């Protein structure tokens, strides 16, 4: 599904290059639940953003299914991003001016889904995440855990093939964090491919594979037996 080959990402200033990612090669199959770990500044988020096509590598190749992503025009890349990926952020990033329902609905609007189908899909997801009662509230009226539930709901509403999560539990209490991780596990069991960045060793064990980054290199790539 994802094939990264010699990916590099760096910043240049007058005198020197600062490497963020160096020589990263990686293959991820459909159905995997990958956790990217590593100390701050190791390049975890950058790697996630490159996989999520929000950022471009300075060199190296990226194959997503059959597409050579590094060769694609921006528009096509945006399309891939739009139809295959869902994103969950540490800071939730819900749109303040929209209700829970509307936040979840927005990706469907951008994908021109018909109204009747939107309604039934949102109803399903609200039901499944147990937030039906909250659907008309605005984000600031929700707890952090509830906001992140909405964030996940919004990320998966358009049926992406790949769910990317950047420290999804970073702002949450442990009990709330577990709810999110249980949800990820459930999604994974249903066949969703997930890549998450986390600092939390315990949450890494929800997945099937851990990639450790350090100073832009892959330090370790191990499978977890569940």
């Amino acid at each position: 599904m994802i094939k990264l080959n010699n990916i590099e990402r760096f910043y240049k200033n007058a005198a020197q290059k600062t490497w963020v990612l160096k020589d990263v090669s990686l293959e991820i199959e459909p159905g995997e639940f990958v956790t990217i770990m590593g100390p701050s500044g190791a390049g975890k988020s950058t790697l996630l953003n490159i996989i999520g096509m929000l950022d471009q590598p300075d060199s190296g190749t990226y194959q997503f299914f059959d597409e050579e992503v590094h060769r694609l025009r921006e528009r096509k890349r945006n399309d891939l991003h739009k139809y295959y990926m869902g994103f969950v952020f540490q800071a939730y990033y819900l749109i303040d001016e929209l209700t829970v329902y509307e936040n979840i609905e927005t990706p469907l609007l951008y994908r021109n889904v018909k109204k009747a189908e939107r309604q039934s899909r949102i109803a399903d997801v609200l039901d499944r995440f147990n937030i039906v009662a909250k659907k008309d509230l605005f984000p600031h009226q929700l707890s952090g855990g509830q906001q992140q539930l909405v964030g996940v709901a919004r990320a998966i509403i358009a049926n992406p093939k790949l769910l990317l999560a950047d420290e999804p539990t970073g702002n949450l209490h442990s009990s709330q964090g577990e709810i999110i991780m249980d949800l990820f596990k459930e999604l994974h069991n249903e066949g969703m491919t997930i890549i998450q960045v986390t600092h939390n060793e315990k949450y890494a064990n929800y997945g099937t594979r851990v990639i450790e980054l350090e100073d832009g290199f892959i330090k370790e790539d191990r499978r977890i037996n569940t």
Partner: protein
Amino acid sequence: MLKNNLKIAFRHLIKDKYISAINFIGLVVGMVAVLFIWQYVAFERSYDKIHEQGDRIFRVQTDRVKNGVPFMQFASGAACAGPVIAQNFPEVEKYVKLVEAGKALYTYQDKVTFQPKKVYFAMPSLLDIFSFSLLEGNPETFLNEPFTASISESTAKSMFGEENPIGKIITRNGLNDYTITSVINDAPLNSHLKFDILLSYVTYSDVFIGNGSSETAPYWDGFLTYLLLKPNTDWKALESKFPDMLERTYDKETREGMVFYLQPFEAIHLSSNLLNETETPGDGNAVQFLLIIGSLVLIIAWFNYINLSTARSELRAKEVGVRKVIGSTRASLVQQFMTEAVLINSAAIVIAFLLAQLLKPWFIDLVEKPIPLDIWDNWSVLATILAVFFIGTFLTGLYPAFLLSSFKPISVLKGGGSFRLRSAGSGWLRKGLLVFQFIASIGLIASTIIIYNQLNFMQNKKLGVDIDQTLVIKSPIATDSLYSQKAKTFKKQLQNIPIVKSVSSSTSVPGQPFGMTAGVSRWGTEEGALGFHAFAADFNFTDVYDIEVIAGRALSEKQKSDVNSCILNIKASEVFEFENPENALGLEIDFWGDRFKVVGVVSNYHNESPKSEIEPMILRPINERFTPDYFSLKLNTSEISQSIASIEKTWAQIFPGNPLEYFFLDDHYNQQYNAEKLFGKIFSLFSGLAIFVSCLGLFALIAFQAERKKKEISIRKVLGASVASIIGLLSRDFIRLVFLALIITIPLSWYFMNNWLAGFAERISIQWWVFALAGLLTVGIAFLTMSFQSIKAALASPVDSLGS
């Protein structure tokens, strides 16, 4: 999607309610200003546009020239103009001449008395040249016989009501009978040529004048002449052939003494301001100024919107990032931000439209113009509304929309909120727009000061003529052969009234044109005549009006020979080429065949306001032929309520049946400033609006800046910064922009105001302090606006903003 966009746009407007309110108020004020100004301008520009052949019609302007310099320029010029030009040039298809018939009462069978405002003797070709049409009567016989008349629709209504006026006979001043043969459409309000009654021109040329001179005389002015040129005629080329024509037809002197010009008919209202215009012309300059300033208010409001939206864009950046991540395209983001602009612009235009309707009577009062303000009838006003809406929406929506939608999600979402807008372009844009607003504010303040200075200057100018405590009584309209004698009696009896110091009668009074223009030459020479303004008055006129005699003496009752003496002003003595006025004394002149001797030269007093040039003037005595039109009463007091009864009694005894009409001369004189006062009033009003809207924007922008710099301010305060230094920090940039604006404004407003002042014969020069004051005021206003926010920010406790 649209519904969603509307919803979120609406919620954003509500959320940022102060900024929305400022944008909204600014837009409404700007739109109302533009709606009003545009209607006013559209009306002024709509003059004389209804005539089908309008682009081929030209009015002949006559200049009287001495030594190559024109000293009088007539809208209604030489008697010979039409006939001679038409004879010489086949390019002229037709011409029409009109002569004003003067003040008179028109009666119908002693039952109806009517005093029309405008009556002309007019040629039948009027109908062929202009698109006036007859409501009743045969166009073939329109004004083609002596003593026939055509009356306007409204004259017909007020004289005859519903009765058919055709065939009825009206009597002019009880002397001449005219048969009404047709009823002509009223000329519209926006027509410089208006008339209540038209009398047939042959009555004037063949019966009253009779010797043909009204068609051949080159030195006789007062004839409105309009030419209809053949299609595709080069009128400039035609104009250049007139001097040769004058020499061929008359002689070399005539060629050198007068020039004919052609005035494109449709441009006359706003571009021509000559002697004997048919009505007070519009002021093309003023119209331009008002159009600019009205638009400025709206442009400033638009700039506020752009400024505030781009300033706010940092707050919206996160939303843009999130939306892009969850699948929004750039186009749909642009759409979303445009929706906000559409929403606020359409709300503003609806409110502005309603407000404009509501305030319409007030605006009509303000501009003192009968503007037909019916928006639905006027496509150009409707078009303005649409243009304002679309241009406004695009201008205000598009830039912020593109700026915002260009954000890369990765850079706005990284790290959660420490994002700083690094787009240098928007910084320049914001500063540019601000500088523009400051330029507008300073320029408008400076211009307002200059306009009022000029007004004051004119009103405080020593006129050289005493117009205070002067009551002027108009002569009766219906006069008879005994009028000259009665006028003398009236004058004598007035002098017996206690509050009356002195009385003089004359054909004209200060505050209006002299009334007569005459070609005058030295007695007994073959020299060509020179043009002068003239009026007739009693011997004591110069005493009563306290006009300074520079050389010689005033006319005197004691000098029997003074019935054939006259007075010049200095300007007139210069026209006769006397450098020293003393030398003009004793000069004998030929005034319409009469011989007059110059006995005195008076100062160049301002017969008309200092706006007008001093004209060369000849004052000749009142006699049987030149009977008084005005009685000027110098009073001991301005309290006349007691004595007006005795004046009325005297009047009723001598002129029974005539209504007494009187006015105070200073009021009458000051009416000349009405146009300038009105201009000043409108100008300052709209300047005020523009500055108000600018301040709104500045206020919001500073508030925003303070909000953004909250953390920086707190850190500085923790480090020991004083309140003053923080206020300085927040306002320094703005003050710098004000100075930049000042530098740009000075030459700009100097240029524009100099143009405006060029319309005044006597004018102030523009002083540097005006700009210093305007700049200071702008800094002051800006500082007041800012200080509220700056002080608030500076006084806030640092703990609040650093706590988190």
